[in-house]
Structures are given as structure tokens and as C-alpha cells.
């Protein structure tokens, strides 16, 4: 499969928000690592679903409800194929990746982890993959170990065997939302399994940008969110191996997740209902299905190739134009990074930088990116982050560079 280049001009046309002009000028949206924009096909699917097919799923016998159920469960199959899960009921819909990771810590964690048990994380995790484990430290006395980073922002794997020795869980991101680093997921899963630990993958930043194959990785669990992959907000995914999900106690209790409820107790439903308590994000799941179709249509290998080109161009342009005035965090090798760049610019605080770039409609996020431990390691309280997606092109890189050019004026450096 050779793949083909993305036609970014045509793709941009499909994103209504990117057509918007703000203060008379077009938007340069560089915050997709935070949340992505939505193509018209996703917006239309959502609106059409509410106009024509909205109904409860699973619980009613009438035709309208059966149609809605088919659309909802059809989206589950799409997601299954998108990440190459073995069984469709290995896909659990949650509200976001954060809930997916909490579900694991609450359900698997509380059933399996005792005082002194070791969970290994990395120094580049998002708070969503830290705080749920901190809660188990406080509640259960589990112990956290942290995989350190190399100078260029990759995982330093030299001590991994020791860190994993005796560990019960290794939970790590497939791509850093701050540094852009892509981690060697397959190797990390194998290392976890060699040590007898579970491998949990935070796929939030990886799945929207790359071909994902949980079976090839042999991942035990993976969490990701629809809103970062052209889909609507309000829905996330927990992938889990069938036998592991089967063995886990439920997390949220209520309708849909039960087989029976009596005054003195309850029994749980089969997968995936067991983990989908209450009315799910019906419309949003259907919208996520449309997003998966959209991405599949483009081809995830093509998306990745495109983003590598944009990343390489960004690296080259920013370094050439700003030299030592700009600091780009994370790996320089495009093979092991996505198109997400945390940057420092002269002495301008990221918050001020983002505000000034916004004057040119260049949208970048300033802050700690929900990765405060990593910020401390980098020796900063915040960075400005420009993250590119399939609808961004080298023009957007130039727009960023031009806006940076003007940024120092006001601060008189």
C-alpha cells in the first residue's frame, strides 16, 4: 500500500469552523491536541440523527428504537474495526478518556491492587493517567514508579526492567500531548507482560493520528476520546480484552448494566452493557461513528504521512526563522513524534504569547497541558503548544511563524 497525499485544501473546506473569519481574517486553529474541529459530515450526521432517528436504544421494541439501536451499535463496530479489536463487545463507550482510565482504576484497581502493589507510569503522562492512580495511593497504599525521560523527550527505557519488576500495571501514553513523542507501544506492552503486569495504553493522542492495532500491540486496555478525532464531545472509549473486562466488577451502577435487581442486591449484564450504566451518549456515539468513517476514508496511514510532512516543515521553518529565540520541546526525529510542538519563545510567558498570537487568529494553547509533573521536569510552569491535525498544512506553519515574528514587539525584547 503506497497511500496518497492528503488534499488539505479540500479537507479544510469540509470543516465549517475553519471557514470562519474572526475580525475579518481566517482562523488558524492549532489546538487539535486539546480538541479537534468537526467535519460537516459529522455535524450533519448528528443533526440528521436527532431530526430523523433519535430514540432510546436497547430497551424498546418499536421500529424507531430498533433503528437507533442499529446506528448506535453500528458505531461500536466501526470503532472496533478502527482499532482492530477482536470482539465488538470489547468496546465500551464512556464519556471521555478520563472516565475510561478512572473506570480501570476504580474497577480493576480496587479489585486487584493492595497496599504495596506497584503501578508504573511515565514522566510524560497526562493528569488523566496520574490522578486516578494517586487516588489509589491515598486509598490503598499502592506504590507508583515513574519511567524517566531522555534529554530529547523520549522514554528512557534503560531501567524499565527494574521499574517493572514486581509491578501489577504499566500505564503509559502512546503519544505525549506535550512533547509529541510517540512511544514504542508494542515493546512497552511486551515488557509489561514479561513482568506479569497489565499494559494500559492512553491512546488519546495516538488514535486520531495513526493506524492503531490493539491486537498487534497486545494492549490489555486502551482509553481514547472522540472529540480529539473529529468526533463530537461527550463520548470516549475504553477498549479492553474480553477476559479482563469479563472478570472486572462493574463501575457505575444503574440502568442497562444489570441482569437483575432485587431489594437485596443485583447481578450484572453481559459486556459491554455491564460498563455502560444509564442512558449513553446516544447521538454522540452515532456522531463518533461518522468521524471514524471520515478518518477511514482518508486513510490513517495517509493522515500520519501528512502530519509527518507538516511536522518536519514546522521544525525546519521555526528553527530557521528564530534560531535560539525558540525552544522546541520533544524529539527532533520526526519518526518518533507527532505534529504537536510545545515551545518557548524568547522570554515571553506562554500565556502572553498565546494572547498575542490570538491577535493574528493563531489559536495555540498556553498552560501546563494537564501534565504538571512533566512541566516540572522541563523546568517551566507552562508552555505554548501548537498542534497540527489533518486539516492543517504548511500555510498554517507559516502563519504561526509570522505571528511569532510580531510577538516580541509589544514586550519590547
Amino acid at each position, binding site marked *: 500500500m503506497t497511500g496518497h497525499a492528503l488534499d488539505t485544501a479540500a479537507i479544510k473546506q469540509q470543516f465549517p469552523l475553519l471557514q470562519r473569519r474572526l475580525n475579518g481574517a481566517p482562523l488558524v486553529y492549532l489546538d487539535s491536541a486539546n480538541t479537534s474541529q468537526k467535519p460537516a459530515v459529522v455535524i450533519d450526521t448528528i443533526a440528521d440523527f436527532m431530526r430523523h432517528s433519535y430514540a432510546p436504544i436497547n430497551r424498546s421494541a418499536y421500529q424507531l*428504537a430498533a433503528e437507533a439501536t442499529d446506528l448506535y451499535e453500528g458505531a461500536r463496530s466501526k470503532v472496533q474495526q478502527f482499532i482492530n479489536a477482536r470482539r465488538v463487545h470489547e468496546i465500551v463507550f464512556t464519556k471521555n478518556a478520563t472516565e475510561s482510565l478512572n473506570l480501570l482504576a476504580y474497577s480493576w484497581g480496587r479489585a486487584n491492587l493492595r497496599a504495596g502493589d506497584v503501578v508504573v507510569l511515565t514522566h510524560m503522562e497526562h493528569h488523566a493517567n496520574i490522578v486516578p492512580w494517586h487516588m489509589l495511593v491515598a486509598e490503598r497504599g499502592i506504590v507508583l514508579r515513574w519511567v524517566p525521560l531522555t534529554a530529547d523527550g523520549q522514554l528512557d527505557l534503560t531501567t524499565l526492567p527494574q521499574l517493572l519488576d514486581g509491578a501489577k500495571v504499566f500505564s503509559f501514553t502512546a503519544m505525549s500531548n506535550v512533547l509529541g513523542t510517540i512511544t514504542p507501544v508494542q515493546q512497552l506492552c511486551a515488557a509489561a507482560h514479561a513482568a506479569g503486569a497489565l499494559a494500559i495504553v492512553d491512546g488519546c493522542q495516538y488514535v486520531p493520528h495513526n493506524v492503531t492495532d490493539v491486537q498487534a500491540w497486545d494492549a490489555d486496555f486502551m482509553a481514547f476520546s472522540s472529540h480529539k478525532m473529529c468526533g463530537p464531545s461527550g463520548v470516549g472509549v475504553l477498549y479492553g480484552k474480553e477476559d479482563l473486562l469479563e472478570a472486572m466488577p462493574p463501575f457505575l451502577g444503574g440502568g442497562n448494566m*444489570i441482569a437483575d435487581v432485587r431489594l437485596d442486591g443485583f*447481578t450484572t449484564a453481559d459486556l459491554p452493557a455491564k460498563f455502560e450504566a444509564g442512558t449513553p451518549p446516544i447521538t454522540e456515539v452515532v456522531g463518533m461513528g461518522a468521524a471514524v468513517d471520515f478518518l477511514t476514508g482518508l486513510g490513517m496511514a495517509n493522515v500520519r504521512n501528512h502530519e509527518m510532512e507538516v511536522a518536519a516543515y514546522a521544525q525546519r521553518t521555526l528553527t530557521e526563522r528564530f534560531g535560539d529565540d525558540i525552544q522546541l520541546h520533544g524529539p527532533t526525529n520526526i519518526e518518533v513524534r507527532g505534529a504537536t510542538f510545545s515551545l518557548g519563545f524568547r522570554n515571553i510567558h506562554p500565556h502572553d504569547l498565546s494572547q498575542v498570537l490570538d491577535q493574528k487568529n493563531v489559536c495555540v494553547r498556553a498552560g501546563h497541558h494537564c501534565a504538571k509533573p512533566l512541566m516540572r521536569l522541563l523546568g517551566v510552569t507552562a508552555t505554548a503548544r501548537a498542534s497540527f491535525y489533518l486539516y492543517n498544512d504548511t500555510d498554517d506553519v507559516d502563519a504561526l511563524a509570522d505571528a511569532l515574528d510580531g510577538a516580541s514587539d509589544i514586550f519590547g525584547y
Partner: protein
Amino acid sequence: MPGLEDLYREIILDHHRNPRNRGELPPPAPHAVGHNPLCGDEIEVFLQVTDGPEGLTVSDIKVGGQGCSISQSSASMMSQAIKGKPVAEVQALVRRFKGMMSIPDEHGNDIEPDPSVKLGDLEALQGVVKYPVRIKCAILGWNTLLEALEQA
């Protein structure tokens, strides 16, 4: 009632009105209760499994519980079809029936119909496939049977 003839065949309504093998067997008969969590239907299956000339055999079956015409008639026909049959044949029938209901096998693959397994009256339930919600009704008794067999 136009459109529903496929679902509510006369034989189905007959089994619904006059369920066969209804009742209970006293302990220690292998026994299981199945729930349809979507609608609250409950089916109980009681078995008598004895050693026969062709190996373990379902020598008796009783069906209890409450449910809609589809779950009741499916369980009733099932009880007729398996009573007196060797367990191996029963399992083949379950597989065949699930295949007819478009239920995938344990690997998620379609079940190819095995022509050597005869469905008899159970063919009447074929129309259920067009009503996905009702498949769960039709299959309830069969899953409960499997659970009861595990106790035997």
C-alpha cells in the same frame, strides 16, 4: 395485523397459549434462571440428565418463568425438541438455532447451518430475525438451557 404474520406464526401463538413441558423438577435437578435484562422476562429451566445408550441424555425438561409470546413459545418448542435427546445432539441444536437467529459463535463468526440438524417446528421462529430486539426473547430459553446443562 399486516406485517406481523412473519413474527406471530400460528404455531408460535399456539405454544404461547399452551406451553409444553411447563413446571418444575425438584432438587437436585440441574436448574438455571435466565433474565432478559432489557424487558424483565425470566425463564427457568429444570433438567433431568441421565446416562443413555447414546451417552448423557436429557431425559426430562421443565420450563418455568414468565415472558412474551416469543420467549415463551421458543422455550416451549425447545423443550419439545430436546426432550429425550442426547446432550451432544442438544448442543448441536442450540448451535443451529443460534445460527438461525444470526447470533455469532464464540469467536464472533457467523454460524454456518449444519444441514444434519433438523429444526422442525422451530423454523417458525425464523421470522424473529427481522426484529432484532425480539431475538433476545427467542434466545433466552436456549441460553438458560446451556446454563442448566453446565450444572448437570
